[in-house]
């Protein structure tokens, strides 16, 4: 599976129970649960999907097979929504990247990672604080 990286027009914030993403081009909001957030965190230019799945097995009570399948499905969803794009210079599948393993005390319960798209997109996103075209809230 090819490596992906976060789309540059996506901003996101991590919360104690997941994350919220906003695609600044489409205006849609998305929310991630805690497993989805962990995958999102691991997505960068250096990680491929195999290594992401492997990292999940260290943190969650999940088999390799299930982690790989869940990661692939989840990343397909991210790709479909253009929240991630193909990464350049990806590492060879199966080759571990030079990243410190997280310290895990007891594996957490695993649930299928969820990506929820919220219905109402934003119709106007201000990029410049003094945008004269922006109808300022009265």
């Amino acid at each position, binding site marked *: 599976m090819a490596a992906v990286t976060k789309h540059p027009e996506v901003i996101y914030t991590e919360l104690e129970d997941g994350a919220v993403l906003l695609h600044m081009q489409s205006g849609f909001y998305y929310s991630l*649960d805690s497993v989805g957030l962990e995958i999102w965190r691991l997505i960068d230019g250096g990680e491929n999907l195999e290594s992401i799945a492997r990292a999940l097995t260290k943190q969650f009570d999940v088999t390799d097979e299930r982690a790989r399948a869940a990661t692939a499905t989840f990343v397909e969803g991210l790709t479909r929504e253009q929240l991630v794009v193909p990464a350049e210079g990806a590492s060879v599948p199966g080759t571990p990247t030079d990243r410190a393993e997280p310290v895990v005390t007891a594996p957490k319960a695993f649930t299928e990672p969820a990506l929820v798209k919220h219905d109402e997109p934003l119709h106007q996103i*201000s990029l410049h604080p003094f945008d004269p075209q922006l109808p300022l809230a009265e």
Partner: protein
Amino acid sequence: MPEIYHRLDRAFRDALQQHPTSVVTADYNFAGKTARARLIGSTLAQRFGRPFTHLGSSPVGTAATPDLRIDLWDETATGVPSDGAARPDAHAHAVVKASADGRWISRRKANTWIAFDRHAAHVVGAVADGERMSQIELGRPLHSQLLLWLKDLDIPTVHAGLVALRGQGVLIGGPGGSGKSTVSLSCVQAGFRYLSDDYVALESHGAGRYTGHSLYGSSHLDPSHLRRFPALLAHAIPGKPPLEDKSLIFVNELPGLQLDQSANIRALILPRVVNASMTCVRRASKVETLVRLAPSSLLMIPFTTFAEGFQQLSRFVNEIPTFWIDVGHDLAEIPRQVADLLATLRSPEEWSRD
């Protein structure tokens, strides 16, 4: 852009020179900071101050150098024009200009032309006619400028209501029509203090401690809210359609209701109206809360980029207890549920102080 500020400043000083006895000076407390207003024109002075009566600070002149200076004059009352240029149409959006470095901002509408020097913390401007102020100008004077000034002081504004019981505040957030005003007004009628039903200045003290500050003692209500709160009808000032589809109420003038200037924020509640008899409160996840708040909140704060507002709101949501309030048919249950929630959230130190 600075030339607009200087032009308005000169014109204000001309008005001051020509009408020295017509100046009304007043100090207001915004988030613990003093704003000193000089207003030339009696109608302008009376109308400008009306939503701020609960924020009046110590007698004028006793405060040290104010944190913000506000100088406004009424062109019609004084005969001193700002300039002879054509003004935007009444239905048009404001014309906003900013200097390249963002220091000077001017905002021009049909009846007002206001400039703000952010470094000098000085707002100066003209009201074309104090007798013809729009509903927004009456209910939320200098809205953009005040919010920007507070943002510059690292006190951003959130689009939410705020009520308080014994200094302990509950923020009420959510999209339009979700029940914010219903919850705010139900609580206030039951004895809570009113701070806002739409904009709150939020001051962070670190470690999840926030103070919410009132900005206006006014409220803009849908006609549907007036039907639910008939006691407000006599005090409602209807708007002028089609642009003004809400009624303006000066909550600070309602008999028997009390306002606070500030409150400690103990929780954020998200109303939603349900088809049930009972009202109940339950925990809201952080993700649910941010998704509920962000779409409406972030577009309502002027002079803030989306990314900046998103991060600020996220930080706040992560640090404050968050709850749904499912609003049933019995509105009297709302303040009871909110009071019970506050009681469960109070620290032992706070109980012992009462």
